[in-house]
């Protein structure tokens, strides 16, 4: 009888610690929808932004003097995620030296494309290349969409608890 009683208390103890672990885990996880979506929400937004940059290049394919532009996707994604970029800081011998100055062309993340065969009127749009980039960007938009959609689906499954 005593042995049985001991066994019971041990079991309930194990049960209780298990419960406590679960509660701790839920508290530590802190269901954050922002974290759950992760990189994909930024990627999707940036893909649609890049689509408008490329569409602008294609629309200006016949504009004299227009220079094709594009963004550094990885760099911009890091900026939107709030991460530091890969650029190394300059060596400074004094605290009054300015650090982390933004380059003029990096203010909005747009860069100029290296022209492969610029035309005489100064236009640097290569329509074939822009179209290829645009289609690729669309596919990558769809990929980012699928990832984000999957995240939302799994969240919904967790919420429904079926």
């Amino acid at each position, binding site marked *: 009888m005593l042995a049985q009683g001991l066994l019971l208390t041990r079991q309930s103890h194990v049960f209780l610690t298990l419960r406590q672990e679960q509660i701790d885990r839920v508290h530590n996880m802190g269901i954050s929808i922002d974290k759950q979506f992760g990189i994909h929400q930024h990627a999707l937004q940036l893909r649609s932004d890049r689509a408008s940059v490329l*569409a602008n290049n294609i629309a*200006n394919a016949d504009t004299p003097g227009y220079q094709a532009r594009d963004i550094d996707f990885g760099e911009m994604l890091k900026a*939107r995620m709030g991460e530091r970029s890969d650029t190394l800081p300059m060596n400074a011998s004094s605290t009054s030296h300015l650090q982390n100055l933004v380059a003029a062309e990096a*203010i909005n993340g747009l860069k100029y494309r290296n022209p492969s065969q610029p035309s005489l009127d100064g236009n640097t749009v290569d*329509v074939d290349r822009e179209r290829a980039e645009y289609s690729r960007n669309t596919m990558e938009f769809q990929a980012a*969409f699928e990832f984000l959609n999957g995240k939302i689906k799994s969240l919904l499954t967790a919420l429904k608890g079926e």
Partner: protein
Amino acid sequence: MSLMNIFDIAGSGMSAQSVRLNTTSSNIANAESVASNTDETYRARHPVFAAQLQSAMQNSPFDFAADQLKAGAGVDVMGIVESDAPLQLRYEPHHPQADENGYVSYPNVNIVEEMANMISASRSFQNNVDVMNSAKQMMQQALTLGR
């Protein structure tokens, strides 16, 4: 939502290319429109394109907001200019429009150039249509998020 901008951008491209097609067709149609003096003769017309800058008016250039790409807003037709190329004077003394020396001035339309322009304009138009179509697909897909 930047996908909405694409409709404006591709739309401005299509409208600019259609202006170009219009001038081309006008040039080809008037390629043989004669006049008795050089002032009244039809001259080839060509549109002048310029890139639209949306950000110049709306936000300051030192706006550091990282979530706004200032990609521009498509293409703008700044105006239509008449060609300065010399008119063709042909000696046709029996033509009713001939001047006192027997010359008739024909327009300075270069048909070969106009045909090349026409093909280029219609290709560019198609490119813009394709861009708009895939932007539409992307938007429709984005609307089904979470379904």
